[in-house]
């Protein structure tokens, strides 16, 4: 069947699994555990992920037009430099970041879409992304960026975009951090109010430098939704 071959043509869109497809060993182990209805979905997921990566490699080998970088390098550099700890960056590094970012978005998209499909929806919603983040260990760093719907957003915050306007993820403030946490009450605490703030979430950031991002970003403006030049206006002009 087409889906077994390397994605040489439009056969990439993963075909629904059939009995002729041999599942990779990993999913056989997984298949034993979950309830029957999800078995084929996990199998499908495995296949899709494998095909995704082989497709990515192929794509890179075939099409490499660096004139039209997907993501603007200057913008990426600015984002990186928002972390004061980051000083000098080699010229090639932003290129890697641009591509890595793209791969990341692709992976997040696929996983989110799987969740939407499980719920028989054709519209990808924010909680699909949240679910994908919860399910995937390596996405743990996003766990408070895209909260799940069960936890109600504080009124008027309008979702996570507002809270992260200043670039300070709101999982720091509860620690009473000088990270210029929200001037207001812990109303910015969108993530997981149920979790002990001091103990949980990013009490252990992956690295010291990681922590400093929030510190410095917060210290700059000392409040959320800071005013300033709107990045919004430019964005759609890109690409």
């Amino acid at each position, binding site marked *: 069947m087409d889906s077994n071959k390397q994605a040489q043509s439009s056969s990439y869109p993963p075909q629904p699994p059939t009995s002729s497809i041999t599942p990779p060993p990993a999913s056989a182990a997984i298949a034993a555990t979950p309830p029957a209805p999800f078995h084929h979905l996990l199998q499908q997921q495995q296949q899709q992920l494998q095909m995704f990566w082989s497709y990515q490699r192929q794509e890179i080998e075939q099409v490499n037009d*660096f004139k039209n970088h997907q993501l603007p390098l200057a913008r990426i550099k600015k984002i990186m430099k*928002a972390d004061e700890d980051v000083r000098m960056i080699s010229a090639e590094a932003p*290129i890697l970041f641009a591509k890595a*970012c793209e791969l990341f978005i692709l992976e997040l998209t696929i996983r989110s879409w799987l969740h939407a499909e499980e719920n028989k929806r054709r519209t*990808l919603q924010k909680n699909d992304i949240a679910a994908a983040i919860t399910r995937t260990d390596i996405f743990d760093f996003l766990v408070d960026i895209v909260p799940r719907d069960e936890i109600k957003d504080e009124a008027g915050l309008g979702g996570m975009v507002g809270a992260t306007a200043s670039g300070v993820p709101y999982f720091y403030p509860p620690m009473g951090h000088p990270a210029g946490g929200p001037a207001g009450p812990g109303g910015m605490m969108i993530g997981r109010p149920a979790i002990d703030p001091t103990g949980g979430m990013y009490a252990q950031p*992956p690295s010291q430098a990681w922590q400093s991002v929030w510190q410095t970003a917060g210290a700059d403006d000392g409040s959320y939704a800071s005013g300033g030049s709107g990045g919004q206006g430019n964005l759609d002009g890109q690409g």
Partner: protein
Amino acid sequence: MEKVVSETEELPKAIVRRVVKEKLSQCSPDYDFNVHKDAHLAFTESARIFIHYLSATANDICKESRRQTMNTEDVFQALEEIEFSDFVKPLRDSLAEFRKKNAEKKGGAAKENEARKKRKIEDSSAKNGTKTKQKKQDNDQEEEDNHESE
């Protein structure tokens, strides 16, 4: 939803949107898909945080090696550390391709620059006008020919 004007640099929404839609059009065989606006924002924001995460990790690695400038190897190592090893191979290929193209571009550009410089010199000495125009042109032609055979 209130519109937020922020100082934070964001990734271009249009590009993120395009990346997501292209992928979904592959996942959904009959193009029957939609993306909620909030979801697009979530993608953009997640990508930005990913950059921070990767950048901070790479920066740490760079500092451990007592260097000032974050380089590509730091980034690759960082990817391994944050368990995105699947990205490494495609990114290495991508980088190799970029370096190759860059080298080709530089080769061509260097020749152009040389030719441009020569022309400048010729023009400025023509303005001084010590020789007759004709003789000058002949001399210049000789010079150019000599250079090009290098």
